[in-house]
């Protein structure tokens, strides 16, 4: 018995040492290995399959009209953070801001029956929709605010969407480091009852930091989809033909998911 136990003991001890050593080595190797994988295009394409899966499952669960939760006025935060652009540096925008956006217009064109340019006053005079919802940023924070604006579906019906229109591209007045801001959504989100072009936050006209005078609310997706400073809505057959092809500023500039439901 002792004859067998002796070598077994020492081999175990060796293994323990080897294991601890390989753990330390493994930690270093893991890092470089993961970074190498992260740089590999085929691996990256594989990772991106999750986005397709997430969208399919979310649409299956929520359908076309699953509603984002709405809150009571008590839940509204004392301040709604402004993220991304706080003040567009476009001089034209700044001039318009100085005159309370009196001359601001919202163009809706592309694959529509009656391309139209709406004055800000016209938008504000349209039937109002108000909702107290939670804004979820891709970074991880949330804020609850009360949004007032015009239902996006109502707006689309004013211009008449053509059957070939499958996406909406939102062109914005702010330009960041990599180019002008824009976003795009499909018709499921465009026709969702809570999707709106908002012009007021917490019972006051939209502040510049939150996208004055008009911004998109698309409540079932993360904050970067909620385009601010919207000047033009273009109905298109394929968002991949616009700008960098990713369907949005952050999608192009940083590789964020086009579908931002999680």
């Amino acid at each position, binding site marked *: 018995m002792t004859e067998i136990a002796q070598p077994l003991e020492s*081999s*175990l001890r060796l*293994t*323990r040492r080897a*294991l*601890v050593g390989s753990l330390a080595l493994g*930690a270093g190797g*893991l*890092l470089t290995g*993961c*970074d190498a994988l*992260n740089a590999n295009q085929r691996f*990256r394409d*594989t*990772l*991106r*399959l*999750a*986005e397709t*899966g*997430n969208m399919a499952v*979310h649409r299956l*669960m*929520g*359908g076309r009209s*699953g*509603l*984002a*939760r709405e*809150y009571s006025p008590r*839940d509204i*935060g*004392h*301040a709604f*953070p402004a993220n991304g652009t706080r003040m567009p540096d476009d001089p034209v925008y700044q001039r318009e801001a100085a005159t309370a956006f009196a001359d601001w217009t919202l163009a809706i064109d592309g694959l529509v029956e009656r391309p139209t340019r709406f004055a800000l006053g016209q938008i504000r005079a349209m039937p109002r929709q108000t909702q107290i919802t*939670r804004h*979820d*940023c*891709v*970074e*991880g*924070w*949330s*804020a*609850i605010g009360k949004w007032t604006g015009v239902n996006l579906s109502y707006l689309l019906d004013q211009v008449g969407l053509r059957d070939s229109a499958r996406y909406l591209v939102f062109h914005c007045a702010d330009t960041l480091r990599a180019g002008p801001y824009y976003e795009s959504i499909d018709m499921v989100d465009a026709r969702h009852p809570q999707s709106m072009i908002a012009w007021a936050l917490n019972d006051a006209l939209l502040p510049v930091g939150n996208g004055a005078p008009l911004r998109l609310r698309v*409540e*079932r*997706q*993360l904050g970067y989809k909620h385009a601010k400073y919207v000047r033009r809505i273009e109905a298109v057959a394929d968002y991949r033909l616009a700008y960098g092809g990713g369907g949005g500023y*952050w999608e192009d500039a*940083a*590789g*964020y*998911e086009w579908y931002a*439901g*999680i």
Partner: protein
Amino acid sequence: MNTAAAPLEIQQDLAPPEPVPAEQDHYHARSTRVWHWVNLVALIALFMSGLMIFNAHPSLYWGEAGNRTEPGWLMIGARGETGFVRVGSVQITSTGVLGRWEDADGISRNRAFPYWATIPSDYNLADARHWHFFFAWIFAFGLLAFMVVSLFNGHLMREIAMRSHEWRPSTLWQTIVDHARLRFHTETGESYNPLQKLSYIAIIFVALPLMIVTGLAMSPAVDAALHFPSIMFGGRQSARSIHFIIAFALVAFLVVHVALVLIHKPLTLLRGMTIGARR
């Protein structure tokens, strides 16, 4: 002794006096072995990419909402050249490891978790999210498959389920005492001792499923479809906090789990969980 009986006696001496109680069986079914390692890879990828995602907003809150206009219950940050971790009103200096640290090139960075703990190692929220959601699918469906297979192949009821007598305080206490003396197996005929069973049950049926549900609770689309995941935790930011806490509880489990394997029978246990051969 007569000569006729002698060979018989020798034979009896050579043969074991009675069947040796089967050496603790460390064999694992193929489904268990595959899941164990796939799950390990997925959890490491999820944890490290999760730390990067946390770096994008290194504060945690309770309730539905929470953002920079209010202090969170936990924050990792830097003030000047000092990195800190603040929990409630208690603040600990953590320069070099958390909040402010030097990257591989010796450049000081003000980020919560250091480069050696995150995927990718350079700050990139978009890439971390791609990793996180891809491995989340592997993790979630792997766990589901393991649960279903373990139910049908008997693993669950045979090895993991607690026997009624194992719930006795005296039995549980005896197991704790045995653990403290680093004696892990007493002859009970069970594959796992009660403490082991309880920790596996807690991990497989509580902690891991909670990671999935708290993760889903943070999704605005899932929240719109099914309100309960977010509501049951007290809101989206509470779910995010719980997600973070359980992630570190899983790391603690991993450390204890590996330590116990190492001080018990590393080779035998590793063989049972890899090639699965009986010794």
